[in-house]
């Protein structure tokens, strides 16, 4: 059911802005490549090829098997303390620089088809508050952990959080932009698509690891990280920094 709802947005997005299945594949591949570096990832030893992606079974067209996240039983924890208390802890602290929740006016249920532009979702609302409280912007983000229950959420989120313009999220994924060394390394543990689907909580922990320098796919000298919850549905986001 959520797959169908997001597939509906994905089809419209592809129609309106010329995004392609190759763009969605770029997202799936980046996540899988990072999972292949992460021994704790469910897909650690399972590389993905374009051939596998393009010939996989449909779930809800235009989304195929590899556009959908894993199903995982898992548990994670995140300890939040004051800045003063954090100084005395054993591990290097990572700071919540900005946090925001987003729900557009009159948003109903999960995905809301009843506004002027359903492709402009809660990420836009959350982003406004997130950046308002921050002293850096999208172009200063070193690494991103963007909620990926479905690949199509990534181009929408990239636009919503200001990494590119309206309709440019598909093209943003080209040229290895989401890979290590790319413009914005994405979901460096493998994310919900390839590490584990724990409702996005693992994205928070991976953001912390990046800023501590302990990720299995470490972005050199990462000092800022965006972590988001899902686009299309009521959402939230944080900016982490060390």
């Amino acid at each position, binding site marked *: 059911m959520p797959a169908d709802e997001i597939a509906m947005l994905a089809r419209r997005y592809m129609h309106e802005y010329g995004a392609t299945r190759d763009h969605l594949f770029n997202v799936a591949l980046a996540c899988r490549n990072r999972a292949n570096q992460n021994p704790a990832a469910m897909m650690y030893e399972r590389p993905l090829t374009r051939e596998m992606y393009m010939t996989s079974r449909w779930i809800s067209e235009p989304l195929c098997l590899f556009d959908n996240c894993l199903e995982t039983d898992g548990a994670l924890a995140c300890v939040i303390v004051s800045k003063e208390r954090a100084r005395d802890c054993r591990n290097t602290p990572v700071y919540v620089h900005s946090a925001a929740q987003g729900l557009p006016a009159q948003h109903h249920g999960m995905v809301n*088809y009843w506004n002027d532009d359903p492709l402009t979702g809660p990420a836009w609302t959350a982003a406004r508050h997130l950046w308002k409280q921050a002293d850096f912007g999208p172009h200063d983000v070193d690494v991103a952990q963007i909620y990926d229950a479905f690949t199509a959420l990534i181009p929408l989120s990239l636009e919503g959080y200001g990494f590119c313009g309206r309709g440019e999220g598909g093209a943003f994924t080209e040229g290895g932009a989401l890979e290590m060394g790319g413009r914005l390394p994405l979901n460096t543990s493998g994310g919900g698509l390839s590490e584990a689907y724990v409702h996005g909580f693992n994205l928070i922990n991976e953001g912390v690891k990046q800023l501590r320098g302990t990720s299995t796919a470490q972005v050199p000298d990462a000092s800022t990280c965006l972590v988001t919850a899902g686009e299309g549905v009521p959402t939230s986001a944080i900016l982490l920094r060390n």
Partner: protein
Amino acid sequence: MPAPGESPSLLSPVPDDDGAPFWEYAAQGELRVQACADCGELRFPPRPCCPHCQSFASEWRLMSGKGRIWSYVVPHPPLLPAYAEQAPYNVIVVELAEAPHIRLVGNLVSGADASLNSLPPERVRIGAKVQVVFGSTGLPQWVRERT
């Protein structure tokens, strides 16, 4: 009531107080959308208060039943058994001619009471003009508009 030949286990709407009139009109073959009785703004899904002027007075306005396909998907199994039997079929979101921001979910079918898979998915196009039809289930379905 399920249509003849249709699986009885296809899901039926579960109306709430706000949405009940929508289904009552649909059962009579009318597509009506809730509108503010003060400022006239259409709204969907049905709810007590007008988001435009905050009035609680509402009425149900008759629509032409014409619209365009805004987007569509083709679900594949695993699905509920009655749906899996008919997969692959299309699910469309239609924007209404009178109010494009009001979008209704349904299926593009060959006629009232036709099966979900009565049209091949490759016949579905974004932007195609469609017209509402009501079968014996009272569920709004869509057919291609005849010009």
